[in-house]
C-alpha cells in the first residue's frame, strides 16, 4: 500500500480579520480616551498613594502655579450661570454669544475686566499667548476669586441642588504660603473641606 502523502500546508495565515478587530478596538479606545486638557499653567502635580478618583461634576478646580490662580468650574450650564451672576455683581453685561463661548472655556485666569476681550478670542492658543492671563485677583480689596467661588456655589446649588466641591490643583514646587492664602479665602466662605488633586504614585509606595 502506498504511503499517504501528507499535504504541505502554507504557514501564512490570513490576518485580515485580526487586523479588522485590532483597528476597531483602536478606534474605540482613541475615541473614548479623554484627551488631557491642556493647562494654561504648567503644573506638575505631586504624587500620593490615595486612590479616590476626582468626580467630574459639581466641582470647581483651582489651579495654582507660579503664584497665579486659575479657575474652572465643571459643567457648561454652571459656567454660564456663574458668568451671569458675576456680570450682575460687577455690572458687566454679557451677550448670549459670549455666554455660549464662556460655557466651553476651560481653566482661565483673567481679571473680570478683561474677560470680555478674553472670551472673544478665537481659540485657546491665542488666549494662552495673549498675556491676559495674569491670574485671578485675590487681594483683599479686589477678591474676584472669592466672588467666582461664591457665585459658582450658588449656581451649582440652583441648577443641581447639591453642594459644590472645591479641588485644588497645585504645582508641586509651589510655596506653602501661596496655597495657604487660597485656602484662607476658601475658609472665609466656610469651605473647610477640599480635595487636593494628585497623581498616583508609582513604584514602591
Amino acid at each position, binding site marked *: 500500500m502506498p504511503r499517504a502523502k501528507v499535504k504541505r500546508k502554507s504557514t501564512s495565515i490570513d490576518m485580515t480579520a485580526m487586523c479588522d478587530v485590532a483597528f476597531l478596538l*483602536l478606534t474605540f479606545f482613541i475615541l473614548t480616551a479623554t484627551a488631557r486638557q491642556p493647562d494654561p499653567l504648567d503644573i506638575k502635580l505631586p504624587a500620593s498613594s*490615595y*486612590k479616590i478618583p476626582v468626580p467630574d461634576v459639581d466641582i470647581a478646580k483651582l489651579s495654582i502655579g507660579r503664584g497665579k490662580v486659575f479657575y474652572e468650574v465643571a459643567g457648561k450650564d454652571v459656567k454660564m450661570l456663574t458668568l451671569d451672576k458675576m456680570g450682575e455683581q460687577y455690572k458687566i453685561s454679557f451677550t448670549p454669544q459670549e455666554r455660549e463661548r464662556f460655557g466651553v472655556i476651560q481653566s482661565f485666569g483673567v481679571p473680570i475686566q478683561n474677560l470680555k476681550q478674553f472670551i472673544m478670542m478665537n481659540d485657546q492658543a491665542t488666549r494662552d499667548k495673549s498675556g491676559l492671563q495674569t491670574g485671578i485677583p485675590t487681594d483683599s480689596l479686589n477678591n474676584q476669586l472669592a466672588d467666582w467661588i461664591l457665585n459658582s456655589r450658588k449656581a451649582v446649588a440652583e441648577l443641581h441642588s447639591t453642594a459644590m466641591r472645591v479641588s485644588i490643583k497645585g504645582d508641586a514646587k509651589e510655596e506653602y504660603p501661596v*496655597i495657604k492664602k487660597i485656602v484662607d479665602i476658601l475658609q472665609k466662605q466656610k469651605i473647610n*473641606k477640599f*480635595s487636593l488633586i494628585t497623581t498616583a504614585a508609582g513604584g514602591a509606595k
Partner: protein
Amino acid sequence: MAELDTSSGGGKKGSGKVRSKKASTKVDLTAMVDLAFLLITFFMLTTSLSKPIAMDIAKPDKDVKDENRLELRASQTMTILLGKNNKVAWYMGEAGKSQPNIEGYGDIRKSILANKKKVADMNNNDPKKTLVVVIKPTSGASYENFVNIMDELNITKITAAPAIDDENITDAEKDFMKKNGIL
C-alpha cells in the same frame, strides 16, 4: 508575500515576448497588526491611569469658638513642622519640653510608625488613645511637602484626624527651625 519584484520587465534580453508577472494580491499584515495592538495597549493603559486622584483634606473651622474643645494629651501628640529644603522637624509632647528631631521625608515614615507603636504600647492598644499628629507647615515648605506628609499619614494608617495648623507656630519652634537652617 509582499516583496518587491525587481526582476520583471526587461530582465531577459532577446526574447521577444515580455511576460508581465502577476503580482499576488495578498499583503503581509503582520507589521500593521503589530502596530495596531501596540497602540491599543497604549490607549488602554493611559485611559485608566491618567485619572487624577483626590486627597480630601479638612481644616478646622476658624470662626467657631468652641469652648469645649478636647484637650490633647501631650504624651500622644506628635508635632511635625515642615521646613524648607525638604526637611521636617518633629517632636513628641509639648513644645519646648522635648528636643525636636530633624529628618528628611524618607525617614519620617519610620519615626511616625515608631511613635505610633510607642503610644499604642503605652495605652495597652486602646483604640481611643492612638497617636495624634499635628502638622505645622511653615512658610518654607512647598506644596509637595504638605501633600507628601499627608500621604505618609495615610500610608502609616494614622486613624485620628490630623490637625493641620498653620497659624499657631510658636516662637520656640521658629527659633529652633531657624537655628537649624530649615526656616
